């Protein structure tokens, strides 16, 4: 499956190995891993909960991957996104794109992340020392998606 939503952690090395296995036309693999920071807007983050919209999430991610395949010379692509309870330092999201050349791999990987940030139905809730708060979307994320 090129897109997965799961509570379990992922092993980027194993995922990359599986994605490129047997494809000798691959000349470049770009990888992005998003992780939980221990700070947000100068407040210490002690935990993070990721909620999603079951039923829509996988379809939205698949649509983003399909769009990347139409726009770029992608040989293979994978998105793994975690949901549930996470802690600072934990991995959140993995994007892997293989291509013949680096330019397409870098661009397709950035494209998938920029669209994921604005179109995939995930929401983060942070735990701070004095309570919880929902993370607000950033205008810079819309701008990043708009450049494509």
């Amino acid at each position, binding site marked *: 499956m090129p897109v997965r939503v799961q509570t379990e952690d992922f092993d980027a090395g194993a995922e990359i190995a599986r994605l490129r296995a047997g494809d000798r036309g691959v000349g470049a693999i770009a990888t992005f891993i998003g992780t939980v920071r221990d700070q947000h807007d100068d407040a210490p983050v002690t935990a993070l909960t990721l909620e999603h*919209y079951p039923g*829509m999430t996988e*379809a939205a991610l698949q649509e983003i991957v399909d769009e990347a395949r139409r726009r770029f010379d992608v040989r293979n692509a994978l998105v793994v996104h975690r949901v549930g309870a996470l802690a600072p330092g934990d991995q959140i999201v993995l994007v892997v794109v293989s291509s013949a050349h680096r330019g397409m791999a870098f661009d397709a990987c950035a494209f998938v992340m920029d669209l994921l*940030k604005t*179109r995939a139905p*995930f929401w983060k809730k942070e735990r701070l020392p004095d309570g919880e708060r*929902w993370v*607000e979307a950033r205008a810079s994320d819309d701008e990043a998606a708009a450049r494509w």
Partner: protein
Amino acid sequence: MRDSVSTSVRLRLVYLARLREALSSSGETFELTTQERPSVSSVVAALRARGGPWAAELATGRAVRFAVNHRLVRDDHPVADGDEVAIFPPVTGG
């Protein structure tokens, strides 16, 4: 004077993340009766008329996003009988 024709559609509404908490509801079955072409906007207008947190959370200018049958749409998107309409804050994954 012409009689105005009203349409009625039965929808499944889903509220997510901050909206689910603010509205104290994860969703409901909703019967929308309107004299205009039924759209996401008509659903929002009907919910806003409930007042309280509904009016506050869905007030004009609040950043709210919509999906109909699991696809992101704008608020002018039509809704039909049996549709699942999700209402949620801007997404923050990744």
